[in-house]
């Protein structure tokens, strides 16, 4: 069922990673991604992988959920691998027929890219799995607040993001309901060619859009009834505060990045 889609889903928990400040986690994710792109050798990849697995273990997120979240990635991964295998020029030719040449370099590169994408996505999942959407937008707003100086509507942007995230589960539930109702009237969503499948979506998308607009309207009215008028002078119920844990996490991040850069510089 649709409910099993894990996109951006939050797994409540009480691990060290869950307790980190959302800002720390966001910055750490950026550091992690930078390090991932700096890393070019198998040794540095090993270090990154160890770090990632360590984080997963600490967060106590079941491995099954992470693997399930990877499913939509399969097409992109296959595409990347195939492109790299065929498009990379190299010296050690393993196979050659017609216009296709497969080289050792190409295969290694393909493997490299696939591992990189997998680690990239897993790292991002770890953030959304351990951070509630509200905490995430709060952290983002706080990190981006310097941009207010150049008149960026930071609060409005984060509010929009927050609402969008908040309504993903609601809309998924709604889609589920509408799908069940149309299936009860004999709608066939599985069989048929592409055109028929697209046509079969109409009975689901029309009510879904109607209800999304209705919800948006109702939410806007409700917000206005409570005199909501944007970010100026608004205080927060839950203030973000750094703790010792966050300092330690930042240290780990700096060490990781420095380590990977050193490995790259020394060409290991």
């Amino acid at each position: 069922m649709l409910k099993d889609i894990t996109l951006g889903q939050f797994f409540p928990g009480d691990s060290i990673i869950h307790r980190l400040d959302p800002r720390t986690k966001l910055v750490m994710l950026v550091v992690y991604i930078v390090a991932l792109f700096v890393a070019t050798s198998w040794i540095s990849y090993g270090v990154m992988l160890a770090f990632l697995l360590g984080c997963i273990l600490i967060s106590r997120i079941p491995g099954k959920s992470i693997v399930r979240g990877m499913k939509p990635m399969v097409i992109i991964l296959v595409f990347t691998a195939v492109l790299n295998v065929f498009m990379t020029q190299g010296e050690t030719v393993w196979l050659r027929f017609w216009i296709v040449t497969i080289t050792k370099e190409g295969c290694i590169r393909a493997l490299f890219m696939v591992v990189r994408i997998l680690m990239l996505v897993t790292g991002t999942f770890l953030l959304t799995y351990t951070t509630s959407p509200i905490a995430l937008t709060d952290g983002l707003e706080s990190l981006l607040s310097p941009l207010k100086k150049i008149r960026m509507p930071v609060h409005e942007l984060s509010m929009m993001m927050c609402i969008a995230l908040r309504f993903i589960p609601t809309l998924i539930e709604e889609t589920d309901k509408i799908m069940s109702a149309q299936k009860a009237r004999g709608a066939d969503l599985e069989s048929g060619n592409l055109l028929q499948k697209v046509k079969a979506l109409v009975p689901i998308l029309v009510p879904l859009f109607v209800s999304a607009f209705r919800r948006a309207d109702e939410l806007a009215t409700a917000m206005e009834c409570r005199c909501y008028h944007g970010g100026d002078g608004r205080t927060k119920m839950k203030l973000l505060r750094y703790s010792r844990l966050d300092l330690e996490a930042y240290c780990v991040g700096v060490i990781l990045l420095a380590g990977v850069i050193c490995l790259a510089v020394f060409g290991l």
Partner: protein
Amino acid sequence: MAPILQIKELSHVYSAGTPFQHTALDGVSFSVERGEFIGIIGHTGSGKSTLMQHLNGLLKPTAGSIALDGVDIWANKKVTRQARFRVGLVFQYPEYQLFEETVYKDIAFGPKNMGLDHKEVDRRVREAAQFVGLTEAQLEVSPFDLSGGQKRRVAIAGVIAMEPEVLILDEPTAGLDPVGREEILENIQAYRRAKNATIMMVSHSMSDVARLTQRLLVMNGSKLAMDGTPEQVFARADELVEMGLDIPEITSVFLRLKQMGLPVEPVYTIEQAVAVLKALKEGKRHA
């Protein structure tokens, strides 16, 4: 005659193996005879909706079986698809599922999916519209231009047009005014009489189920807690209240009268109440 629906040891677990695992149905067994009008009561989260979605094959049981006319509805794909048409399911707030340009087309969606020819679809749409009291002129307007109550009727007609042998409704009168409720309940009765159909209705209105149904299923904590006539079920008023359910208002009035010393037996409908009170008056006059 063999029962039309036979449910055996039905269990369903949502999101098995995740932190959100939740047992919604636990070993539910009962059977339904042709032409019965059954009420399903139970408070929110007791498993009513999950149960209903099993009866026409929308949800697959984790354990147990559902047989329609003696055939397991999960035997093969064809049987499952047939079950969707033979057991019609009207969801809560069904008006949110309308999508076509005209009322006619929306009602025709189900019959068309059954693969019926043009003429038969037309006959069924018009007949279904008649059952729910929609006029010819209303068939040609957009469903989004109708009032809430009329939208609800269009949605119910959309299921009735498939002419299901079993019609299941999840709170068909929720959010309607008293007149609208009465009319929809009357429409359902009319369909039942015309087609000798079996009706299963989830409702929170105890007086509605007491008045309309011949049999009540009470769901509590994922289990089937009671199964009997309204008289039998409402006689266990204490247990119902413990489950967070009500008894019909007239029943509580009569229970109170009895407490106050009047020689009355508990009743469940207004008609019964009138009869009992009249008899009481007669008795006094003779005494």
